[in-house]
């Protein structure tokens, strides 16, 4: 029913549309940038901050449309169903985008979704209370070895980056931790402050960007230290094979003509290099890490494979 109506409506608009001579992309009408999360969240604020600089590069108008829900699936579905004319783009976040495909049959075709640019790569990390006896992942692992199951780790749900990081650490160090699920990072932080859990997972950007005087960070889970936390040792440096980060970027439908996608991608790249934007990004502790559409497309399967291996681990444990 819904599809029928949608299609009829679409057909009507198409019919109407052909009558009018189109101006050249992107000046015909505003580009709709779908944000897959609620207004005010990290992804939303980042896209709203960036949008004016992309507008400047393209000489076009961008309107932000929030379509939150189902960790992004609703937005991705809307993007793949949109007309492939280059006037619809969407935010794209991993690991959610990748893990949802492992977990369930998604309602959109991932092959129809093409990355445009990666903007941020924010590594995961583990934090404890500032007064904790643990100063590094090593201390924590030693304690967990002596007391199996005693270390409680706050995560924001199955298959989130913190949960995957926890599983990797368990495997790499041969220890047993207890996961406690919270609805969102803020609840987890409250529980850590109150001493109801011993440790929580948090993205480095979130950690650096907030008042963290009450916390201590044990290590970041990146290949190399992130630009926003150059003094924080990685898990690898400490001898543990934990590698988890969340990425934020922009995607378009693959049916959109390649030259439009390239133009859009270039505009995003130039916008990211704008010193004014960089200043704002610094204020918001965004871990900027640009990847072009091609590079991100190459990187994604590698990441998916790594996540898939951990994911299998999680399923076995259940």
């Amino acid at each position, binding site marked *: 029913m*819904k599809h029928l109506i949608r299609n009829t409506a679409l057909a009507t608009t198409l019919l109407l549309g052909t009558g009018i001579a189109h101006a050249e992309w992107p000046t015909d009408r505003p580009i709709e940038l779908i944000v897959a999360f*609620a*207004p*005010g*969240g990290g992804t*939303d*604020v980042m896209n*709203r*901050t960036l949008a004016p600089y992309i507008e400047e590069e393209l000489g076009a108008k961008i309107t932000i*449309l*929030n*379509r*939150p*829900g*189902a*960790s992004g*699936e*609703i937005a991705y*579905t809307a993007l793949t169903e949109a007309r492939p004319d280059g006037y619809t783009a969407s935010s794209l976040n991993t690991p959610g985008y990748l893990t949802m495909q492992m*977990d*369930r049959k998604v*309602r959109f075709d991932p092959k129809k979704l093409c990355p445009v640019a990666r903007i941020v790569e924010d590594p995961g990390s583990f934090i404890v209370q500032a007064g904790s006896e643990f100063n590094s992942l090593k201390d924590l692992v030693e304690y967990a070895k002596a007391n199996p*199951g005693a270390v*409680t780790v706050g995560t*924001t*749900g*199955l*298959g989130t980056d913190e949960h995957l990081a926890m599983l990797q650490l368990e495997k790499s160090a041969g220890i047993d931790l*207890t*996961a*406690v*699920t*919270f*609805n969102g990072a*803020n*609840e987890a*932080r*409250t*529980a850590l*402050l*109150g*001493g*109801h*859990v011993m440790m929580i997972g948090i993205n480095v950007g979130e950690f650096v*960007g*907030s*008042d963290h*005087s*009450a916390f201590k960070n044990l290590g970041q889970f990146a290949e190399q230290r992130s630009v926003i936390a150059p003094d924080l040792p990685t898990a690898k440096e400490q001898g543990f094979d934990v590698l988890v980060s969340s990425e934020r970027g922009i995607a378009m439908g693959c049916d959109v003509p390649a030259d439009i996608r390239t133009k859009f991608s270039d505009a995003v790249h130039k916008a990211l290099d704008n010193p004014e934007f960089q200043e704002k990004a610094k*204020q*918001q*502790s965004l871990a900027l890490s640009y990847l072009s559409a091609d590079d991100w497309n190459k990187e994604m399967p590698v990441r998916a494979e790594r996540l898939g291996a951990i994911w299998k681990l999680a399923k076995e444990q*259940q």
Partner: protein
Amino acid sequence: MDFINLLALGFGEALTPTNLGFCLVGALLGTLIGVLPGIGPTATIAVLLPITFYLPPLAGLIMLAGIYYGAQYGGSTTAILVNLPGEASSVVTAIDGYKMAQKGRAGSALAVAALGSFFAGTVATFGIALAGPTLSSFALSFGPAEYVSLMLFGLLAATVLARGPVLKAIGMILLGLLLGMVGIDAGSGEERLTFSAMELFDGIDFVVIAIGLFGFAEIIENLENHEARGVLVSKLSRLWPTREDFRRAWPAVLRGTGVGTFLGVLPGGGATLASFCAYSFEKKISRHPEEFGEGAVEGVAGPEAANNAGAQSSFIPLLTLGIPSNNMMAMMLSAFIIHGITPGPTVLATQPEIFWGLVASMWIGNLMLVVINLPMIGVWVKLLTVPYRLLYPAILLFCCVGVYSINNRIFDVVLAAGFGLLGYAFRKAKCEAGPLLLGFVLGPLLETNIRRAMTISHGDPSVFYERPISLVLLIATVGMLVLMVLPSFRRTREEAFQEEEA
């Protein structure tokens, strides 16, 4: 004294013309969106966030905070006038407030709500200034076990909200709990009760249920009863509360303020719990419990004070610890971060003008609201004399736009229509929707915390009675249960029920 100096610093900041102006804009905008059902402060603040890029940090924060507590004021207006609670905390206000409006005493109800809210806002603001850090450590001592006990207490107290048999109220709470479980379960990633609808993965939004059960169902019922319809059943009586109203309202305001200030600090359902705990409390200690649900002025004064005090004190964890206690506060946190300020103990020490300026502006904003709202009461009450055939299309439009704007999708509007049908059936079955909404709000908190508590204790239930706060709450819950089954208590309920039927 240090405190006086800091407060003076705060007022100095808040009283600059720019900040005063943005405080007024925020309060007015908040009142507007509060009055419009469905459009919540969270959505509005989200839209305004980018604008605050261009404002000085304090001015932006003052405006956003103004929207938040302004919406609390405005929300009670719609609840009283047309029985449409825009958010969980005004569900309770609608119970007696709307009855008062039907009896021609809308003016009294609105005035008591405004004055009670102002008083509570003042006390809670000073509470933040004086005891913010202490209160936040109280909030932190609430772990999963304490939450479970608190929620059990709250759910039991919710049975008092409805008139009629306790069993029906319990059933409605259970149904609310069930609706609260819809969505993807965070702990396991499994879809629960979603019927494979992707739109239900994140659960049902409160506004969808409230607009359906209250808004749409009320309109349908009013159109059906052609004779006794519209809001105004009896003639409009005086605009202003009587001396008797004041005498009965002020102790309720005091108690509500106390309850609200403490519970508002708790992350999660604090402010919601506050308003209906205050209602249950008033009904329990009243010498005329049978008047509750029939337009008791205490039933408006207590919860309104509690909800406004709670709204103010929910700033405490954010300002003192940097932890937002609800979605609204998470949005405020984004606003801070956009300006490169990270709220928390450090900011308290290094940028006192931000913290104290905001606190002072909240008091000023509350004062502005009361000054704006009292003269408005006349206008609002006039609105009730508009013929219903002209009033209901407007309500319908506001409700629809409000529901659509939550997630910008058709699905929610259709779902709300479904809840409208359900609400209509419940009215035919003489079941009241208040307890359902509270079960819906508190249910997820109860469930996640039970599961958390059991995971942390590895399945040992002793956590619930070995921790002092949890133990006290459990004893209170059992005490209330005993009171409910005691014959004397049951008689008063029965009496109330029969009177209502007679």
